[in-house]
């Protein structure tokens, strides 16, 4: 009998950290405001009190420094988990992540490695303007040596985070901050909680969602919608609005992505729409579109569509015209069905 609790993503992340701190003395967690206060999104609430300030602590406001000490701790036998408060602020850490954390296993001939996790809230929908809304996953998927995860629900947020922490490879985990306390269906005036959502039924104990496996969030016959992060829920709404029978694939891990699930789905449906909130040009959707045509060209009955954020800075008050809406996604689905 598995004890289940209804959790939102904040609670699910907290539970994953709590379990890993409990299970493994080499796990430590730190970040800006992440210790005493428990994080600006409350994901580490109560963990310092429970596990001690030597294991859950605040850092200086210094993402480059956070990433650097994560590297040093990782090669010296710890399994550190660092929080970057907003994904928009990860760029001072970019050199340390891309040139150092990602590369040390290879460059040292396997003599040193970095089993570290960097988790960071990403994406829009919270009136955060340019610098609290971006979704920079493709700036990491282009980097050899790290794995890239983008969660969408309480269940996968906990299971993927545990997998990331247990991985001996470095993992960057993006969490959809708009969905921390409830799924987002594209209507800013409708603010549901996770209550009664099937993916909010989360085991209290340790479990994993394996890295590299996608989740089939909806099953259909005529079109495949591939998405990740908050856009999974917006896509779900769009599919319902379109009246088209669709597979909805929640990618979950972007590197390495789940080839089997995607290929199988496209071979069945012959149509593909890719949805992400990051800008279009060189977004991970471009990788998906190219890969789908490489592998499934003769099964495709229509051009692949991408529905994405625009190639502009992320806006403040007009964010609903920036992010893919159910209407834009539904239109793309219907357009390729009519091809």
């Amino acid at each position, binding site marked *: 009998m598995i004890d289940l609790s209804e959790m939102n993503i904040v609670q699910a992340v907290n539970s994953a950290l709590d379990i890993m701190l409990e299970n493994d003395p080499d796990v430590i967690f730190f970040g800006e405001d992440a210790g005493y206060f428990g994080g600006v999104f409350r994901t580490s609430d109560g963990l310092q009190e429970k596990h001690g300030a030597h294991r859950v602590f605040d850092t200086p406001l210094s993402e*480059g420094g956070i990433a650097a*000490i994560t*590297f040093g*701790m990782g090669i010296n036998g*710890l399994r550190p988990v660092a929080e970057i408060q907003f994904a928009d602020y990860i760029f001072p850490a970019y050199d340390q992540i891309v040139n*150092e954390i990602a590369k040390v296993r290879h*460059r040292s001939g396997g*003599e040193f490695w970095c089993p570290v996790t960097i988790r960071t809230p990403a994406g829009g929908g919270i009136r955060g303007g340019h610098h609290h809304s971006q979704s920079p996953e493709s700036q990491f998927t282009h980097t050899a040596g790290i794995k890239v995860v983008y969660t969408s629900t309480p269940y996968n947020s906990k299971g993927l985070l545990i997998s990331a922490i247990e991985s001996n490879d470095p993992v960057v985990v993006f969490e959809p901050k708009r969905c921390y306390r409830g799924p987002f269906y594209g209507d800013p005036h409708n603010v549901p909680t996770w209550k009664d959502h099937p993916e909010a039924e989360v085991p209290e104990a340790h479990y994993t969602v394996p890295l590299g496996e996608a989740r089939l969030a909806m099953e259909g016959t005529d079109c495949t919608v591939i998405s990740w992060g908050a856009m999974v829920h917006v896509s779900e709404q769009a599919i319902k609005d379109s009246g088209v029978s669709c597979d909805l694939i929640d990618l979950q891990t972007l590197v390495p992505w789940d080839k089997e699930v995607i290929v199988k789905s496209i071979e069945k449906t012959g149509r593909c729409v890719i949805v992400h909130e990051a800008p279009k040009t060189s977004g991970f959707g471009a990788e998906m579109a190219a890969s789908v045509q490489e592998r499934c060209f003769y099964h495709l009955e229509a051009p692949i569509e991408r529905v994405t954020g625009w190639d502009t800075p992320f806006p403040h008050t007009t964010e609903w015209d920036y992010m893919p809406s159910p209407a834009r996604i539904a239109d793309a689905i219907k357009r390729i069905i009519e091809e």
Partner: protein
Amino acid sequence: MAAKKKQVTLHVPSAPFRPGDKASFAPFENEPGDLPRPDPVKCTAAETTDHAYGLVRVLDSNGKASGPWNPELAPDELREGLEHMVRMRIFDDRMMKMQRTGKLSFYMRSLGEEAVAVAQTMALETQDWIFPSYRQPGAQFVRGRDMVSMINHCIGNEEDNVKGRQMPVHYTYRDGRYISVSSPVGTQFSQAVGVAMASQYKALDECCITWIGDGSSAEGDYHYALNFASVFKPPVILNIVNNQWAISTHANLASGNPTFAARGLAYNVPSMRVDGNDFLALYSVTKWARERAASGEGATHIEVLTYRAGAHSSSDDPSRYRPEDEHQAWPGGDPVDRLVQHLVSIGEWSDEQQKELEERIDGEIMAAYKEAVTYGDLANGPYPSADTIFTEVYEEVPWHLQEQWDEMKKWSSD
């Protein structure tokens, strides 16, 4: 009539001397014995103000050791240090010749800075972590690395422990706790603080030593390191090797403050400036920093004042930007000559013994080189298998790398 404005333009510092200039430096202001040796455990940053603006020395210009910083090393220890330094210098000479005759793709010498890694590593315990930049390979001799293995790496042949993935001199030597050298200079400085924080967390008696250049101390990583070290007090020894030059850029462009050590005071980290060509002073200051680290008092910041006597690398031509004989005017002299002078002056060494040492080491290096090329030379290989492109990117090979690996195999010359 409007008042005439004083003509102003951008202030861009130039180097003190450029090609064609006669270089001359003021002698060091401090003599051995000028600066006290504070209690490493109780010492505050403020108590090191004179040390940060002055210069800790032990050897005077006649090779006599004196003052409270004299580490009173036994003659055997001094001779061991000398041997490592001489080995470094001859190794560099040989490797540079190999590079010039096309047997290595690239090389970087430690010329004039041999004392830095050797003395400082000798002052540590064997469990301490070494987080080097590219001009501290000498630490590996102290930790016992086999020269054949070092040359294999520089060639990038089949026996290179990093499998031909890194440029020469970017050594990794886990058995000696010598962490992998990285080309983006400066990153190791803040990472070393994390290494030390892990030792601190595990309550182990170990510290981590790291070095950054005067040039790379302008990177953010330098400041991240000092700041995190100041806040968390891990057992770390943070050295700036001020060798005056970052390729063609003089130290006065890396900082407007002529003493790099003094920056540490603003972080409340005890800070010292030490004569980097004085083996005894370097050893002693590092020992002091190690004692602080072991007592839980945290970091020490050290400016190692020296001079880069050679080119930045085999790709560099310093005659284009500095007087060719500038290093001869350096008031710190040559670190090998100074230790020899000291040993001779105390009756523990002779010119004859020095000559014999150099000949013996040269022979060992030639033998090591000859052995290394049996595992592959740069022109003809054998090189590491092309498969090493795909291994150790991740712990296990993910499917997308496997697909590309299979594709490569169709085209590979292996």
